[in-house]
């Protein structure tokens, strides 16, 4: 099967890095485009002021820009058409939604990523993406 557009989740973890490498290999093989997505998941829930949320988002945004900058340096020399996005939200829901909206036909995820405490009780990000995604999902170990 040939993939046209591959979405890979990048969260700064070791698992995320493996997923990026695998997605880049697949994109090269299939001559596909690569969409690298990072989710700002640690925005404070039940905040007291709007400022608290804004400050935390800025912090997360800076972090992911750095992560994506490093990913770009790795991928660009391979000549893969590359797009990058940082979006706030719940990782699983946001990844599944973006994959659908951007017409991706494969989602690649690391097996273990950074995850908030309550996600332990709700299942892993990968589990939930598999449940919700409209396309194939590849979980990389």
């Amino acid at each position, binding site marked *: 099967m040939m993939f046209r557009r591959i979405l890979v989740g990048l969260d700064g973890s070791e698992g995320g890095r493996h997923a990026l490498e695998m997605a880049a290999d697949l994109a090269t093989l299939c001559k596909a485009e690569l969409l690298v997505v990072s989710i700002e998941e640690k925005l404070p829930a039940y*905040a*007291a002021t*709007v400022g608290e949320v804004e400050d935390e988002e800025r912090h997360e945004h800076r972090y992911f820009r750095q992560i994506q900058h490093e990913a770009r340096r790795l991928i660009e020399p391979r000549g893969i058409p590359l797009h*990058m996005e940082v979006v706030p*939200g719940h990782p699983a829901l946001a990844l599944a939604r973006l994959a659908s909206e*951007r*017409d991706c036909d494969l989602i690649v995820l690391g097996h273990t990523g950074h995850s908030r405490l309550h996600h332990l009780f709700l299942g892993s990000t990968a589990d939930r993406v598999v449940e919700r995604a409209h396309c194939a999902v590849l979980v990389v170990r």
Partner: protein
Amino acid sequence: MESNVWLIAAAWMALALLASLISIRVGISVALIEILIGVVAGNFLGVHSTPWIDFLATFGSGLLTFLAGAEIDPESLRRHLKPAAAIGTVSFLGPFLGAAAFARWVGGWEPHAAWIAGISLSTTSVAVVYAVMLETGLNRTELGKLILAACFITDFGTVLALGILFANFNAWLLLFVAVTAAVLWQLPRLTRLVIARVGHRVSEPEVKFIFLVLFLLGGLAKLARSEAVLPAYLVGLVIAGVFVRDRVLMERMRTIAFTMLTPFYFLKAGLYVSLPAVGTGALLIVAFLLLKMGTKIVGVWPLTHLFRFGRRDGLYTTLLMSTGLTFGTISALFGLSNHIIDQGQYTILVTVVIGSAVIPTLIAQHYFEPRLPQPVAKMAVPEAGVSSPVPES
């Protein structure tokens, strides 16, 4: 230990630091964690407040209220004034009257205590709403901006009620109203002038100027037996336009508030929550929570239809308008500090307020999250871009 200010300060700052670390780890706001740590400290560690902590906490609540007023987008409020005023007013009046009546006639609370219940449960948390909308991207849509504007109107109703209902209608109140009106009229111009002439120096004259205004109007409010949060919110509202253009000033105010003042406020708010009273008041807590959400639904949902929201958007908006945190705890603590309500009633109200921050949000996110009209891409991905609206810093 009792007379050692440094050790008392160290103990409170240790609790505040612990709250920050937990907040960062679990992704829940530091305010909510501080309240919960305050509950533990008050019930199990014997921590109690002192007069100087009371002052820091009071100043913290005033500064929080000021920041809440200053965070408004004046342009957005102007653009959506009609629907926002209608939804925001009903969103305030429904739970305010409903909870007050319920507390008075079903709970058997004294009239003034019943008003405190009404005020505490009338609120909508702009911050909770904003955080939820940020995750869906709704904050960038016109619907999102309308919802936020309506939340500001609701909170304005809350601080207005808190400032007026318990005030003495005498010469002090007249003086307070006159001075507040004059100050608010000139404040945007004066603040711009201070910033232009002496702003952004190490001695921070513009921050001191704003503090001076808050202290002065808070003092006059106290003389009139009103509440300092009313002028604080109004001051924030009238200089919101200045803050929109001066993000550095806003960030400095936030730093001062979140480092040194609001931890004392939120820890203190939790300190007076009695866990045994949560058990004995459980039925009342559930009833108040259902009442708050029910009155918001009855009031706000039909209006969302009137203003042509879709069914899903309408329910989502209504549930978000049922949230509350900061102003709810401020109102309850005002009642407790002024001996209008007792600790048992305070416990019930603060528990309901915390529940109203969490439960409607979860329901809204899980069942009624709006589907955003975004393009299904044929190469719609921004080239090398980031979709988040956060500016580079």
